[in-house]
């Protein structure tokens, strides 16, 4: 038992921290927000120069061959800067689905290009509003996926349906891609209309969907952790420098106690994220519980901290110019995407044995 980063993990964390701090600046993120929601230079540097896009893809398939802890580290650091990257869509959803459920040929064909950043992929799952999502039969996709993250930037889609998981390329005849104006512009959604387009099946759909959800939930939780920590760090700095009534506002208990509450939640979120990452890597029986717990807890923490960031900054925190809204909007998007905190807690309630006979 050693619940701290190894030296190698510590180095990855340092590298990622420095990289995002230097490159995923507010200015660059805002430029990407006004465009497609992808900072293409950042993505190229991240994937090609640092070689980090393939962190959880095996070395024989062009990746780095590490695990969920390392993926969580990257997602946390990206989240700290609300980096405009298709990290979730491409690396935490599409790639694990192909790795777990693809044929050898599909894996060899696609994963090296995802690892190098040459291809951006995304993932479409059942619609959260209850409308029928995509249907897949006889090699044909019908229906629609309403909220596909970074969907307008993706070259390739993994589409999970009730009767199979399909992959389909951007240019496939009949595939409609409609970019959606999205509250979170760092990870905008697109609507996909399939309309009977031909698609290729993944060999093991169940494994593919499980891997995509598990890794996706973890990556969203890690992104939320990094974002929440950034909200706290920025707000502490502001509370120290902002003077009212002749005192720094951080000396008032009404303010400092709220900052303490943010830290209390964040430290629990940190335990949740890395517990879940380890549990998946170690194939522990606790893994499903841990991942649902992490997604629910970290997203609630982010929502709480981003709201407090605006409140404790006062009027300036409500302006477009200040970055608080970037966090607030990403927190909102993280909470909804792939299951709300309430839904994840309901899964925990089932795993905790509430449905067993008295």
């Amino acid at each position: 038992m050693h619940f701290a980063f190894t030296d190698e993990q510590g180095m990855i964390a340092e590298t990622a921290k420095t990289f995002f701090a230097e490159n995923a600046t507010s200015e660059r993120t805002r430029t990407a927000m006004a465009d497609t929601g992808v900072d293409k230079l950042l993505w190229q540097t991240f994937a090609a120069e640092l070689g980090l896009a393939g962190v959880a893809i095996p070395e024989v398939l062009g990746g780095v061959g590490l695990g969920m802890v390392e993926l969580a580290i990257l997602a946390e650091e990206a989240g700290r800067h609300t980096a405009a990257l298709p990290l979730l869509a491409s690396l935490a959803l599409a790639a694990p689905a192909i790795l777990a459920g693809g044929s050898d040929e599909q894996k060899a064909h696609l994963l090296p290009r995802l690892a190098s950043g040459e291809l951006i992929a995304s993932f479409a799952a059942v619609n959260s509003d209850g409308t029928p999502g995509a249907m897949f039969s006889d090699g044909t996709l019908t229906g629609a996926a309403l909220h596909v993250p970074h969907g307008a930037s993706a070259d390739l889609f993994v589409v999970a349906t009730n009767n199979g998981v399909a992959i389909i390329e951007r240019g496939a005849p009949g595939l409609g891609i409609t970019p959606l104006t999205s509250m979170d512009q760092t990870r905008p959604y697109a609507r996909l209309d399939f309309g009977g387009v031909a698609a290729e099946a993944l060999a093991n759909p169940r494994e593919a969907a499980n891997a995509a959800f598990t890794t996706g939930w973890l990556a969203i939780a890690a992104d939320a952790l990094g974002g929440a920590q950034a909200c706290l760090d920025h707000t502490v700095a502001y509370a120290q420098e902002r003077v009212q009534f002749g005192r720094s506002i951080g000396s008032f208990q009404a303010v400092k106690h709220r900052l303490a509450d943010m830290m209390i939640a964040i430290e629990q979120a940190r335990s949740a994220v890395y517990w879940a990452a380890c549990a998946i890597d170690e194939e522990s029986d606790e893994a499903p519980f841990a991942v649902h717990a992490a997604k629910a807890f970290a997203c609630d923490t982010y929502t709480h901290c981003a709201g407090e960031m605006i409140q404790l900054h006062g009027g300036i925190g409500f302006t477009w110019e200040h970055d608080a809204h970037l966090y607030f909007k990403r927190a909102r998007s993280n909470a909804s995407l792939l299951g709300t905190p309430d839904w994840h807690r309901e899964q925990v309630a089932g795993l905790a044995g509430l449905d067993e006979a008295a």
Partner: protein
Amino acid sequence: MKLGFSPEEEAFRAEAAAWLKSELEGAFADVRGLTSLIEMPERRRDWEHRLGEAGWSCVGWPKAYGGRDATLAQQVIFAEEYARAGAPPRLNHIGVELAGPTILAFGSEEQKARFLPAIARGEEIWCQGYSEPGAGSDLANVRTKAWREGDDWVIEGQKVWTSLAQFSDWIFAIARTEDGSKGPKGLSFLLVPVDQPGVTVRPIHQITGEAEFNETFFDGARTHAANILGAPGDGWTVAMGLLGFERGVSTLAQQMGFRNELDAVIAAARANGEAKNPLIRQRIAKAEIGLKLMRYGALRMLTDAEGGRLNPSALTYKIQWATWRRDLGELAMDVLGQAGETVAGHEHAFPALPNLFLYSRADTIYGGTNEIQRNIIAERALGLPREPRGDLK
């Protein structure tokens, strides 16, 4: 990062579990599953002796002082197995978790040899004399005085909220040993025998109806001059050094007790159908998640401590568990409904879950209130300005 235990550690687990099972299904079956700190005190003393005899009392201490030299992982494992086996809360938990570690850290060789084996063997039970009527959250405002007379310290004053003093042989107390000193300066950390004419212990009945706390009066109480930890005037440093120990391995044993309490809430919810209520399901799930996060938070903290680092996140632990348990008490009553508000018979003694609802109101007060914890976190972990002091007497 690694969460699993090695085969050697799992072997240690099996050994500990087997011993606990044989004792708690054998000679100590009568104390198995007790949750109150003060029920059956004589049998609890016997249990302390038995743990000591078998070397399972203070597993993390050096063998020379009655411990087992257990590694951190082994201590975690023992704490888990202890609670899993339904072993009762330790009557001497203040000796084992607070007095002992402080003596280990600050005591002279003579003091360690004198006091530690007696704690490990369960022969001397300890209590803590910190709070006073005028020194609660502002603990440094201690007024109890002590001065030297011949080979003794003489102590005069009053302590309050001294848990388990009625069963204790020794009390560690902070007293003002420099006339006219104020705040944290001029305090000394004294070890005082309880059984003497100058010490009076009076029970305080709490909202549960039990009397676990006491007022302790020092009226010309005496202790030998050698019974001081650290130098005269260094008492505050010694007392604050102890706060670190409160966040040690014992937290994991405490959590296993919480596990048993949460299981009881879940069992009650299944039995009366509340387990189907979506709002109750959300709250139980939150409690489940909170408990796991305490466990993994404690493991992070302990891993850091093993590497010689005190992670500032350790400062968040007290408010976390205290608030979690208070919430669990409220959840328990919402699950039980009015059935939880009545009890058969004339004694004002409620079963475990309603008692938890009442008792847990103390958790967010003792050992530093939630408000003081937030100050500590904001000031020490986040670097925010200190609270300005007032000047009211």
